[in-house]
């Protein structure tokens, strides 16, 4: 009995502390002079702390003297004006918040809301497309209807019926009070649910792949160098910041999509500069040949088609930050870094989720009308790399599938005739310690190693370092008997002709070439090779295993034809 009494006493003793913790009294929302008001507190009588927001109802209105007949009006201050609301204007209880958070009584750090902003994905789209770019939507939208049809339309929103009890809608509308409980500051920022590990965001936003992504799971922290990346949260690791690594629910510099910064790449490179993420992508982008994401601003649109029409490159054209992981894969399967991104399949159809890495490259380097042109002028000209790598071609490097040639003795193990390679095995940042992927290189075409294409290049391992990664140098220039001597050694070593002059490294499209004239990636560089003056032919003819003849003129030497077997 005595024990129970003590327990009871302690229970009651505890109550005031609990109450104090959960009421508005000790929060910044106590604007009465009893509040933790900044500066001096007066001993004067206390204003009712509720009336800062809750206007007392006056049943007896004052009568306007100018209209003696009029009787004055009692206003309903809590009117829900959804029916007359112009879309995007704040309604309901949000009006109450905004009338203080306007830079006077409260600062606007957490309450700037601009009119005429529509929410659902489709409408955002139309805003981007129109000239209404002056609409600053740097805050999470409020006062819009969040119902099942919106959830279905967005496809990445939780159904309103499954929201937890802390998340409240007001007449089906999302208001300030959905995320903020103005009476309770237990979670900081008056949040209804803490946003550590993005708990608050993900109660509504169900982003595909997010749960397993690195941005959700990485425990990486800032190394203390450069700019501190998480100035708008109290959290100090990638996983704790979650969505807020890149997004800011209020006052976002990037406005649309509430990104931290208006330049797309800044949202990535402030961490991916070696100071949070282990690799420095920024330094790669600044190399002379790069996918220069700094060059384009405001062209990328997340709703854009898989096939890219407006020429640009942003980090998010190749990476889906909601999906990226550091999972490895084997060619041609796309690895975790490029998980969940759009691409063009080998047959030319668009896909929202690539399966193979090359599908991503084909967004811009295949059927895109603004694709970069091929750097070498060849007898068969083709800028569409999808057509160059097609498995029906007479010859191609094995990107979509194993190559055509079943006898390639130069291949260095583990490569074999049945190997498949990535685009990024050749096109990647140079440097042994550089992160994978074609971010930037000191070599043209973002090649991982040196690949000299000029005529009169002395043969050396360094000059054809790229080719010699897979094709063993000694095997190319010294082995294979007569073929090696008469063809490779003769041209590459003695004549200083670049590999690139006879070989087209990507492949020759089946619509333009054939197995007789274009096997072994033969497609001559027209700036060096010209037609044979006697026969007027410019042609390679395959004569079977390690045999062939050429009709051409090169280095003043007419081949009309020259044959090897």
């Amino acid at each position: 009995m005595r024990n129970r009494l003590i327990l009871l006493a302690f229970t009651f003793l505890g109550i005031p502390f609990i109450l104090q913790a959960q009421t508005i009294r000790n929060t910044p929302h106590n604007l009465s002079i009893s509040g933790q008001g900044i500066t001096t507190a007066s001993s004067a009588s206390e204003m009712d702390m509720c009336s800062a927001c809750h206007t007392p109802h006056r049943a007896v209105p004052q009568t306007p003297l100018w209209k003696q007949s009029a009787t004055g009006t009692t206003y309903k201050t809590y009117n829900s004006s959804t029916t007359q609301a112009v879309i995007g204007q704040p309604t309901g209880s949000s009006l109450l918040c905004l009338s203080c958070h306007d830079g006077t009584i409260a600062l606007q750090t957490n309450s700037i809301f601009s009119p005429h902003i529509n929410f659902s994905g489709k409408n955002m789209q139309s805003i981007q497309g129109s000239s209404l770019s002056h609409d600053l939507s740097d805050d999470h939208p409020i006062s819009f209807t969040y119902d099942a049809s919106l959830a279905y339309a967005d496809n990445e929103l939780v159904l309103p019926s499954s929201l937890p009890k802390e998340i409240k809608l007001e007449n089906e509308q999302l208001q300030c009070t959905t995320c903020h409980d103005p009476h309770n500051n237990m979670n900081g920022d008056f949040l209804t649910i803490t946003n550590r590990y993005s708990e608050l965001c993900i109660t509504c936003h169900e982003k595909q792949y997010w749960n397993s992504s690195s941005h959700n799971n990485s425990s990486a922290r800032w190394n203390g160098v450069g700019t501190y990346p998480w100035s708008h949260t109290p959290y100090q690791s990638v996983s704790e910041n979650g969505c807020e690594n890149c997004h800011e629910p209020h006052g976002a510099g990037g406005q649309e999509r509430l990104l931290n910064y208006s330049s797309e790449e800044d949202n990535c490179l402030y961490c991916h500069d070696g100071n949070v993420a282990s690799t420095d992508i920024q330094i790669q982008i600044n190399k002379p040949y790069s996918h220069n994401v700094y060059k384009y601003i405001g062209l990328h649109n997340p709703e854009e088609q898989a096939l890219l029409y407006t020429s640009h490159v942003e980090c998010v054209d190749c990476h889906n930050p909601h999906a990226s992981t550091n999972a490895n894969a084997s060619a041609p399967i796309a690895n975790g870094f490029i998980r969940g991104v759009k691409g063009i399949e080998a047959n030319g159809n668009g896909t929202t989720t690539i399966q193979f890495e090359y599908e991503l490259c084909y967004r811009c380097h295949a059927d895109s009308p603004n694709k970069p042109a091929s750097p070498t002028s060849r007898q068969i000209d083709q800028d569409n790399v999808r057509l160059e790598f097609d498995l029906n071609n007479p010859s191609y490097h094995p990107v979509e599938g194993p190559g055509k040639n079943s006898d390639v003795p130069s291949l260095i193990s583990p490569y074999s005739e049945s190997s498949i390679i990535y685009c990024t095995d050749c096109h990647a940042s140079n440097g042994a310690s550089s992160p994978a992927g074609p971010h930037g290189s000191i070599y043209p075409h973002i090649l991982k190693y040196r690949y000299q294409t000029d005529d009169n290049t002395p043969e050396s391992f360094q000059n054809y370092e790229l080719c010699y990664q897979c094709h063993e140098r000694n095997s190319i220039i010294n082995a294979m008997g007569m073929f090696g001597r008469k063809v490779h050694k003769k041209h590459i070593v003695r004549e200083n002709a670049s590999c690139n002059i006879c070989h087209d490294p990507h492949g020759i499209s089946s619509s333009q070439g054939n197995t007789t004239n274009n096997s072994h990636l033969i497609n001559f560089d027209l700036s060096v090779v010209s037609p044979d003056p006697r026969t007027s032919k410019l042609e390679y003819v395959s004569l079977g295993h390690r045999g062939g003849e050429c009709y051409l003129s090169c280095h003043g030497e007419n081949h009309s034809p020259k044959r090897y077997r």
Partner: protein
Amino acid sequence: MAQNFRLNSKKSRDNINRRLLNLKALKISLRLLLFVTFFSGIIFRVYAQSESTPQNRHNSQEPSIYWIGQFPSDEKAIKTPNIFLRLFASFVGKKNPRLIRPFSVFMDRSDQLWVLDQGSHSVDRIQIDVGEITQLRRTKSTGFPSLVGICAAANGSVLFTDSKLNKIFLITKNSNSLQNLNNSTSLNRPTGIAYSQINKEIWVVETNAHRIAVLNNDGKLLRHVGHRGTGPGEFNYPTFIWIDHSGIVYVVDSMNFRIQILNEAGDVISIFGESGDATGYFSHPKGIATDSQQHIYVVDARANRVQIFDKEGNFLFNFGEQGTGKGEFWLPVGIYIDERDRIYVADSYNARIQIFQYKPGATNEK
């Protein structure tokens, strides 16, 4: 930190005045005017008061408020004055500024409307007769994070506050430069600002310090008025301020839900108002101004209305309710009344300035 910005070329500013004053002639030529404005791109259209305006249904013997116009008057016209300019703009990618969230408003003597726009983070100067907006920002890429109060100061200069930067900015007449009034004066969230022509003093409200700082023309602090509290001369989150031509100061003591009227020295003359939702009470009082008859106009953002009191605090009249139509408001904030008794209200979430006219009654009540 002086920055350059482009000054507006002189326009025929007086045109609009004549139009407004000559309302009868306007009524006759209304159709012609609309026709002309449509084709010439003049976007400030004046609607002669229509019989259906609620404010107009009373006896004309009584003083009254008329809705006379708004800026922008037409969404399409504001984009560009004419098709060629629009085409040109589409080539050079120039965006035409427009109001986004006007917060405070001020009309200078050369009929230039000044608007503090918290949406575009810029100070907008508007030639209302041509609808041309000149936006002033701190630099090309940085705006003002939290513009609040604006007023005229000595020699035709204009002062405005930014409550986040804790600064008062000064634009001198005919100069192209924007300068800090006084870098060494430290202010704690300056919001409302007013200038006493009588004493040549700048009164700026420090909301977070619950007091008013009185400065001289150079921005040097002369004295503080008030401190936190609920008694006379004490403030709890004071916000907007107005000084009339006789030097009397009107302060919105927002979280005490009252108006305090002070003399030039800062002593209380009278106090009125309390919290409540009915007419004559305050919910979230914002901008304040007086007309030529010393009527006090107080904007209430929460109630979406403007209430008019006499200087004893008697409730005289109110207008406005929540909505997007003429005379309706969506979180109105700033108010300014010029010497012609034209009332400018910053209708913030309707992205416009609404303009009303006060007309004294045939028998003036005072």
